[in-house]
């Protein structure tokens, strides 16, 4: 165990994994949004810590940007959407929760195994956490797959982006600021577009269940 910052980073990484799993098993949409907010806070904290340790000032900007967008703006938008569209508060999953968790564990093993040799090459202070970041990405992808309602799918997509950001800060001391700004813009734009879509779906079907979209296919 080397030094306090490394330990705190490991703890934050573990917390991130825990939150992703909790989101995977969560049924209620409002709790899901709150967990997503916590997820964002953990990512911001880790970026701040790594920025402080490596004296990389642009990480502070990235962290601030993430805070503004992921922790404040987007959850606010999502809350508004949930109330305006009168979405059902509880969602059923396509496969039951225990099986989802089991597949999640297998994904975690795969991610850890892929990340082990890469982590040995990295010299950053948080090299061991690359596996956890990769696991977060895979788990959020699975969240998009197994949910049948649009809002958890959006949150899954945003969590995936969180995981990528964490992986970038962990392995390579952060992406260039320009890339950060571009990604943030894409995320905001994407959320607005999805929000628009959700209004349209809601108008046509009175419900945000994606199964309804399947009735639209050509026969």
């Amino acid at each position: 165990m080397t030094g306090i910052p490394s330990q705190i980073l490991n703890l934050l990484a573990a917390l991130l994994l825990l939150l992703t799993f909790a989101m995977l098993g969560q049924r209620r949409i409002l709790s899901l949004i709150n967990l997503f907010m916590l997820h964002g806070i953990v990512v911001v904290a880790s970026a701040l810590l790594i920025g402080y340790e490596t004296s990389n000032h642009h990480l502070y900007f990235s962290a601030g940007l993430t805070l503004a967008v992921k922790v404040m703006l987007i959850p606010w938008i999502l809350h508004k959407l949930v109330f305006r569209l009168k979405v059902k508060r509880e969602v059923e999953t396509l496969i039951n929760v225990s099986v989802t968790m089991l597949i999640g564990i297998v994904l975690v093993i795969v991610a850890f195994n892929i990340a082990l040799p890469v982590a040995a090459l990295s010299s950053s202070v948080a090299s061991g956490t690359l596996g956890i970041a990769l696991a977060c990405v895979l788990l959020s992808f699975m969240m998009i797959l197994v949910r049948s309602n649009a809002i958890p799918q959006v949150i899954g997509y945003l969590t995936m982006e969180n995981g990528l950001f964490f992986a970038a800060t962990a392995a390579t001391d952060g992406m260039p600021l320009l890339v950060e700004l571009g990604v943030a813009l894409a995320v905001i734009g994407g959320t607005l577009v999805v929000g628009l879509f959700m209004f349209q779906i809601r108008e046509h079907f009175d419900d945000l269940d994606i199964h309804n979209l399947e009735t639209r296919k050509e026969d």
Partner: protein
Amino acid sequence: MANLILIDYILIAIAGWIAIGVFGLVKIRQTDFVAQVIFPLGGVLGIFLGTLGLIGVFAPVQTELLPLGLPGLPFHVRLDTLSSYFLFVLGIVSTGVSFFSAGYFNKEEDTPAGLICLEYHLCLACMAMLLIADDAYVFMMAWELMSLTATFLVIANHRDAEVRYAGFLYFLIAHVGALALVLCFGILGANTGDYTFAGIRLQQLNMFWASIVFFLSLIGFGAKAGILPLHIWLPEAHPAAPSPISALMSAFVLKTGIYGILRMTFDLLHTQDWKWGGITLALGLATALFGVVLSTVQTDMKRLLAYSSIENIGLILAGIGLTILFSSYGMAGLAALSLTAALFHVASHAAFKSLLFLGTGSVLHSTGERNLGRLGGLMRFMPWTAWPALVGALAAGGLPPFGGFVSEWLLLQSFLFTPGLPNSFLNMLIPIVTAVIVLVGALAAYVMVKFFGIIFLGQPRERKLNEAHDAGIWERMGFSWLVVACICFGLLPVHMARMLDRVTHLLVGDGIGAAVTAGGWLLLVPDTSGRASYMPVVFVMVLLACCVLAYVIVHRVYHGRSRRSGPWACGFPFWTARMQDTAEGFGQPIRHVFGMFFRMTRKLPSEFDKKPYYEIKVEDPFWSLLYRPIAATAGFVSSVAGLLQHGRIAVYLLYSFLTLMFLLLVINQ
């Protein structure tokens, strides 16, 4: 006649069994004589054989050449530590079952008692023979004869169509396995034409052929041991057979498959590949989980025990898989630990499963019921059956201080050592594997509570149960023998470990004996005492002391008065025996959680039924997944091939003529 070495005594015991069997055939109709004289004699021979096995574990390797068999093809036999250990287990099991049968076969079955005696003792003799066989010829002969006699034993009640069907299924799968074994021995003996095991040991096969041999032997021996997916005969055959036969089959016939796998993998093929280990481990875990989940939903007490046997064989196979993994990476010490765990489970499973099956035999004889829904409350009427069954159930549930717990403990310890494996992917799969093993253990306890609780506790669900009579003197002897075996395996693990140390030295080259001996006879220490230790005797003594002390203190300080009255039943004004849980009800939570493991058809009552009823049928999914499609394909292929048979002689003559022309043309080339 001088200089009889140990192996000669064993051959004498085998010959003794054959002689007793033939004697039974002579006195075929005299049930009393056969049951009360001949079977106990067989039991005494069993004790003799068990002692010889015990001595043999500590003796050097011995071989012998018997002039029996065809001219130019003598029998090679050999006694080494692995054979001796299995002979020891056979001795213990056969003694208990023989003494029980002395009382059981006193009643008439469809087959005359003398014939059963012949088949039973022949089966025992063949099993002992294949344990000491040293060439493929003796081995396959003993194997086939064992399958044959076992089939006849299974269809002892042949007037029942279901029993005949079960026997046929057993015979069929046994021969699928035997076919694989013949192919396997064929490959092994192909290069040199030498089919003796001594010759096979000297061979060096390349990895491709060695893998083929390994997997063929896994199929062949797995068919006998009841590994997924070749387990399909077990839940049919074990309930159909008379209970002492089911006990023998579950306790030992399955273990001959395990013996075969061990002999083939570690003795005849010198080096192993880690992929074999991984596949065996996965197969073992799947078998164990499948077996235990299906046993929780059974309503027939013998089928429940049959599925439980599948589970235990799966656990043993998982231990063997782990051993192969360790030894393929050269970690002999850890391989020895997991092998010790697997072999220990062989012995303790033999003891408790035979005890449980014999218990069901007693229940069946006195009540005539196999269905759990018609039993209950038998503890009052049959205490001599109930208490040994309780010991068996606690041992089967993997609870301390009995034998089942020790083998599970050793297996879990060996899993905890695995972070030393060089392959990190395997390292990370270990928590999941450990989790599955622990889950299987917990479910086994669930199954045993269901088994014991529904049969022996509560209220009798049928009125005729009030007339149930208890087990006779011979049956009690059988029970007591096996209860003592269960308890000894639990309380004396160090002696067992020392014995198994010799066996693991033969198979993987190392043993836990050094560490175990350092702790003395009370303390079981697999590695170092700082790491893990277990003292079953102290455990039991302190537990009993606490119970007794509590009893004495409470009765001294307060009082010991009690009064009998009706049960509280939450103040309901009346209650009947039908209000207890049924067998389906007790298994319902597991059925709900593990629904994907079986095919379930349910008929639910609707509001408009005049006589609403609820029906549920739970079936093994392998029938529809694997066996029915195979049977359908076989039927289809046969019907296509049937096109060749026109029934007209001219066409057949044409076939012969065409074949002759073809051969002539080929020779011309």
